[in-house]
């Protein structure tokens, strides 16, 4: 059955001419997220432009704001690596005082969110600022040249988790910031992937529409970081969903007993093996000589699903 796709606005806030790599996943995130935001703002306040962006240091900030140019057709501020959430808190407080209607969008990569920015994020969520925090997850520090983050998946190669005689690559399971965010019992938390742009678009709109803080973690492949060809970005992101590796879900008000899942197979059996996802990416190449590491990754993913309340089978 064909899925009815919601229309995506033709308004643009992410202008072409930025310096991102060809095929950059996060760049797709920027474009879609701001479009969704504007639509939510139009519906909520009658003004599609009623938002401002606070951006953490990282690839997307660097490629979009090289003085004297800018890729942003929205009010935008960058301060530092770890403080997008705190800066957004200040902007939101100022807007409240100025009586300005609208919502603040904070954007950070996985490093700026899961690692160095986690404290500021937690503070912002706990204080219930009217801010959407968007974490684009390319699963490493790309701007500084592909170093591991706590969001880097098990087994992945990065420049600081290189496979070697005594290493299989990254040796810790991925930290799921969406679950940490949900533990703050905020109105809305979601995971998304650019492999399902309509789902992502809908979730960003939802996040922007709720009153109070929301958090969205979106998977966004990075061409050099994942060692993929530029034309494979969306395909890889799609496979992450189809293999069960990237659960799509929504948690409202921290209610872990009523998680809403998207694209979940009715019988809990994922049809495509995780190997299909791994094989496309240079960062996992070495795992194919270490089948036990792939098995370990599968165990970790099954465990994640179990925590989310689902028993799954991964071929």
């Amino acid at each position, binding site marked *: 059955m064909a899925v009815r796709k919601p229309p995506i606005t033709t308004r643009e806030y992410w202008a072409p001419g930025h310096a991102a790599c060809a095929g950059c996943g996060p760049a797709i995130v920027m474009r879609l997220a701001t479009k969704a935001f504007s639509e939510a703002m139009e519906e909520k306040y009658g*003004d599609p*432009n*009623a*938002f*401002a962006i*606070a*951006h953490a240091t990282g690839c997307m*900030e*660097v490629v979009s*704001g*090289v*003085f*004297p140019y*800018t890729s*942003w*057709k*929205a*009010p*935008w*501020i*960058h*301060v*530092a690596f*770890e*403080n997008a*959430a*705190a*800066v*957004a*808190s*200040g*902007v*939101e*407080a*100022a*807007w*409240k*005082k*100025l009586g*300005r209607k*609208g919502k603040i969008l904070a954007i950070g990569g996985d490093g700026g969110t899961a690692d160095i920015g986690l*404290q*500021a994020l*937690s*503070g*912002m969520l*706990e*204080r219930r600022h009217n801010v959407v925090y968007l974490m684009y997850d390319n699963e490493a520090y790309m701007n500084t040249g592909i170093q591991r983050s706590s969001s880097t998946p098990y087994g992945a190669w990065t420049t600081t988790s290189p496979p070697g005689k005594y290493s299989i690559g990254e040796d810790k399971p991925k930290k799921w910031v969406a679950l940490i965010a949900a533990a703050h019992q905020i109105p809305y938390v979601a995971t998304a992937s650019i492999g399902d742009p309509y789902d992502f678009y809908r979730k960003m709109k939802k996040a922007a529409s709720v009153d109070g803080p929301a958090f969205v973690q979106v998977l966004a492949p990075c061409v050099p970081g994942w060692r993929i060809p530029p034309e494979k970005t969306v395909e890889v992101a799609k496979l992450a969903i189809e293999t069960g590796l990237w659960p799509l879900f929504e948690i409202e008000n921290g209610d872990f007993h009523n998680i809403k899942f998207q694209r979940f197979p009715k019988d809990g059996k994922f049809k495509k093996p995780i190997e299909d996802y791994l094989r496309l990416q240079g960062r996992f190449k070495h795992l194919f000589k270490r089948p036990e590491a792939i098995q370990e990754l599968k165990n970790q993913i099954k465990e994640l699903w179990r925590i989310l309340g689902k028993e799954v089978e991964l071929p």
Partner: protein
Amino acid sequence: MPMKKVMKGNEAAAWAAKLAKPKVVAAFPITPSTLVPEKISEFVADGEMDAEFIKVESEHSAISACVGASAAGVRTFTATASQGLALMHEVLFIAAGMRLPIVMAIGNRALSAPINIWNDWQDTISERDTGWMQFYAENNQEALDLILIAFKVAEDERVLLPAMVGFDAFILTHTVEPVEIPDQEVVDEFLGEYVPKHAYLDPARPITQGALGFPAHYMEARYTVWEAMENARKVIKEVFDEFEKKFGRRYHMIEEYKTDDAEIILLTMGSLAGTLKEFVDKKREEGIKIGAAKMTVYRPFPIEEIRALAKKAKVLAILEKDISFGIGGAVFADTSRALINEKEKPIMLDFILGLGGRDVTFENLEEVVEISKKALEGEKVEEINWIGLRKEIL
């Protein structure tokens, strides 16, 4: 009618914030400044202050939220000290680089290790190169006044730089003194509403703030901060004049006390200036020609005023509660810079004292004068002297 109230330095700072009517305050408690956010939250809770008070989870987020709010176009205030200020360090450069007129009150406190909550100036002195203006208060009245002055200077179009106002831990933060609280209407007249000129996040006029500066532009951006700080010299003096007209109290970049015929001049900052004035009176009675001077503004550094002061002295003794390891006192280094090309300059000596709340006694000051006198008589003495050091426990 201005009202007189007996209050602690921290309360004076909170009162200044209340009078300045910032729209956003973001702060995190740290001894000795904790009472500042506490008092502000009381003002807000009682509806006496109409500000958004963001109870942040750290000083890093406090200053980050202030940058966000200021960049959104509103007057913004915070307070901290010591480790809290150090945690803000990274963002202090950014606030100045983005030309945001944030004002911050600092209860000047020592830095770890060892952990120490008492007074010295190491916290603010360590931030002297961030592009923030720095004012130091001698008493609680000055703490209040200088915060108002700081807002006025910071928001001046020719300046647009953030400012910090230091007042000594416990000596001022926790000591009660009578403070004159100016009338709200007069403060309103003096400060006016903050109207942002360059920084406001407005959907109707989207701008990019905090962009990446390539080598082709970075230096020019930093130069504008330099230029703004240079402009601040003139603006501060204008604001001092206006402040006197409105409130009747006079401020100077460097305030002098019995310096006109002095052979030895003791130069310091903050609350120590009060002690020095008393000490000078005592020495004058003994017939010793000494004077005192207090630096109220440390950034921009009062170069011309130092030159004028130095012309009067044979020995310029700098008394400071900070240390720049590997060179000596920071104020001494800066003062030397101001005098380097002067034809005639006094003998310059530095005295490091009062670190981490160590009392500065008249005995200590006698020692300062003894060393200065020796130098005056042509004897060779140390340039950098640690005063009040307990050598027996070293």
